[in-house]
């Protein structure tokens, strides 16, 4: 059916890989991009920490003594504190208490807290008082661990006032409504950072690159005047279109892998400090997508990629040369960058409705949304995204193939010029 497709694909790959412009983009851009990204991240990390000062916390006090009251009062001076009536952390989780108070942190003060404090204060320094901290882990963004690290800071300060090491904490994570004892959310989120950032970035790069490449491969045919010959060959126009799309996907895929390697080096400097001595297993915690999840993620990415490519092909069909094709395509970039950056730092469900709708409407946000969703086991979000983007892609692909099937692909640029001429003429008429 797609006769000539293989021939065209091979030619596309040869042309693209041998093009110095494309190779340059693969090496130069990451060199500039990663340092900039690092600066942005540090900045937002700081501002998030400042925000967390006003953090809200839920306290579950099972201690009857007076020391727990002192502890809570001190806590109250630096954070907004709510007291829970439950006695079992699992109940708190099951009853959705945390979201009622709009917090992700729960502190449990065990029944022996005051007794242990008293023992310690009266000279028995081997006995210390325990508080248990439970942090909700939602895989929402980079700053997941900040809430719990605020508590670290608080307990450090508390101990400095009373006695060193008198209170110690035991951290647990609440993952998908399950309490995972002993899993430190700070370490967990450090591990997840690479996923939270790496995914949007890779997707962003993959999409922009392949759009850039697809635009180049169409515009190069125009600039070098090879398109006219190509269109008279005994080959299905759809094969030409698909050859261009596939060539772009392959080259962009290679570029994305190159980026990921560079990105991992870069992230390595962040995460190695956390990972030392950590034996967290994301798979056993259910924080790595299942096989199904990966499948959905792959499909989601693929349809988004196709829609981006077809869009690039359409736009570049109106350009006269490579440079103007690339600048035409760059008008789409904000639609790629903005969702990526927003979703990198914020959970989509935490956004106002209007912003949420806007993000869902942009097809390129869906692979990122899907990557979060499938990690948390929410497949329906991914599936609906795939359905939506597929419909979008089909429409765009249809337009692209119509464009290729008719004379427009050849004359579009002249029409463009004609419009400008007509505009000029109108201006002259006015004068």
């Amino acid at each position, binding site marked *: 059916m797609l006769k*000539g497709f293989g*021939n065209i694909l*091979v*030619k596309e790959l*040869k*042309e693209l890989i*041998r*093009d110095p412009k494309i190779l340059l983009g693969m090496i130069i851009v990451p060199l500039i991009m990663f340092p900039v990204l690092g600066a942005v991240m540090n900045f937002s990390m700081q501002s998030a920490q400042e925000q967390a000062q006003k953090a809200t916390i839920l306290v579950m006090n099972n201690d009857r003594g007076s020391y727990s009251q002192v502890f809570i009062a001190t806590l109250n001076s630096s954070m907004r504190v709510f007291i829970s009536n439950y006695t079992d952390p699992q109940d708190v989780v099951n009853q959705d208490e945390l979201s009622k108070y709009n917090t992700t942190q729960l502190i449990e003060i065990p029944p022996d807290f005051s007794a242990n404090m008293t023992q310690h204060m009266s000279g028995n320094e081997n006995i210390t008082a325990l508080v248990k901290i439970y942090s909700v882990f939602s895989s929402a963004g980079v700053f997941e661990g900040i809430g719990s690290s605020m508590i670290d800071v608080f307990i450090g300060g508390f101990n400095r006032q009373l006695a060193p090491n008198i209170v110690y904490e035991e951290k647990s994570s609440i993952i998908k409504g399950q309490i995972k004892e002993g899993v430190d959310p700070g370490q967990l989120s450090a591990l997840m950072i690479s996923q939270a950032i790496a995914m949007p970035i890779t997707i962003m790069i993959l999409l922009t690159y392949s759009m850039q490449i697809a635009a180049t491969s169409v515009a*190069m045919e125009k600039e*070098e*005047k*090879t398109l*006219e*010959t190509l*269109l*008279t*060959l*005994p*080959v*299905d126009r759809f094969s030409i279109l698909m050859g261009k799309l596939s060539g772009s996907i392959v080259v962009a895929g290679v570029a994305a892998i190159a980026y990921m390697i560079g990105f991992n080096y870069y992230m390595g400097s962040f995460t190695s400090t956390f990972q030392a001595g950590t034996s967290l297993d994301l798979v056993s915690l259910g924080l790595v997508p299942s096989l199904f999840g990966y499948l959905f993620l792959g499909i989601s990415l693929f349809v988004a990629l196709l829609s981006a490519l077809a869009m690039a092909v359409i736009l570049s069909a109106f350009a006269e040369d490579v440079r103007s094709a690339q600048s035409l395509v760059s008008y789409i970039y904000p639609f790629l960058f903005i969702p990526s950056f927003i979703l990198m730092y914020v959970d989509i469900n935490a956004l106002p409705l209007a912003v949420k709708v806007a993000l869902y409407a942009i097809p390129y946000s869906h692979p990122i949304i899907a990557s979060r969703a499938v990690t948390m086991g929410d497949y329906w979000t991914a599936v609906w995204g795939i359905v939506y983007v597929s419909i979008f892609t089909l429409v765009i692909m249809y337009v692209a193939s119509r464009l290729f099937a*008719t*004379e427009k692909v*050849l*004359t579009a640029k*002249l*029409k463009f010029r*004609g419009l400008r001429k007509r505009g000029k003429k109108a201006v002259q008429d006015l004068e």
Partner: protein
Amino acid sequence: MDNAIGITNLTKDFGAIRALDSLNLSVESGEIFGLIGPNGAGKTTALRIISALLLPTSGSVEVFGLDVVKKPAEVRKIISYLPEEAGAYRNLSGWEYLHFMAKFKTDSKDEIQRIVNDAAEISGLGERLKDKAKTYSKGMKRRLLVARALMTKPKLAILDEPGSGLDVLHAYHVREIIKKYVKDYGVTVLLSSHNMLEVEHLCGRVALLNKGKTVAEGKPRELKEKFASANLEEVFAKVVGLA
């Protein structure tokens, strides 16, 4: 002899511009037919419509009995088109370019090799075929493309200004090749040129095009006799009322 191209009342508008105006033309199988006329006469537009690149605004065009609007895919199988302004893929070598093009004609490796060898001979590029096309001069590129258009021995070769950008010697060489392909392989050739002297040496019949209309048609010798002119340029000037 049967009809290679039949054009009836062909009109093509680009917005407000009428590029072809009720053009009628027929080209017989096995002949070299020349469309001549000044820049903007509509030659390229006519050739593009015959090659199923553009759609007519009205009128009909048949290539060996196949309607170019209804059966463009069939038409593409039997024609080979050389655009007026054309390039080769910058990053492919001449060889790779010819191989790429030959693969659309056949799947047989032997035949592809034969086709490419023929093209190498037509182009006269020799060892330079190993170099990337971006290193070629304008004339070398043109020879590569002319070779590409003829190498498959199509039923109909549509050549838009085949001699443009070629020096006298290479233009002569290309004319000889075209004649040879018509004689030896029964290729029908429709070409355009604004160089009327070149056409006189090459074409069995010509049509003079002006403002999208045929203003005269026939064998070069007959036209010269009819208008009592020394060459086609003079014929043209007389026909459009310049002399």
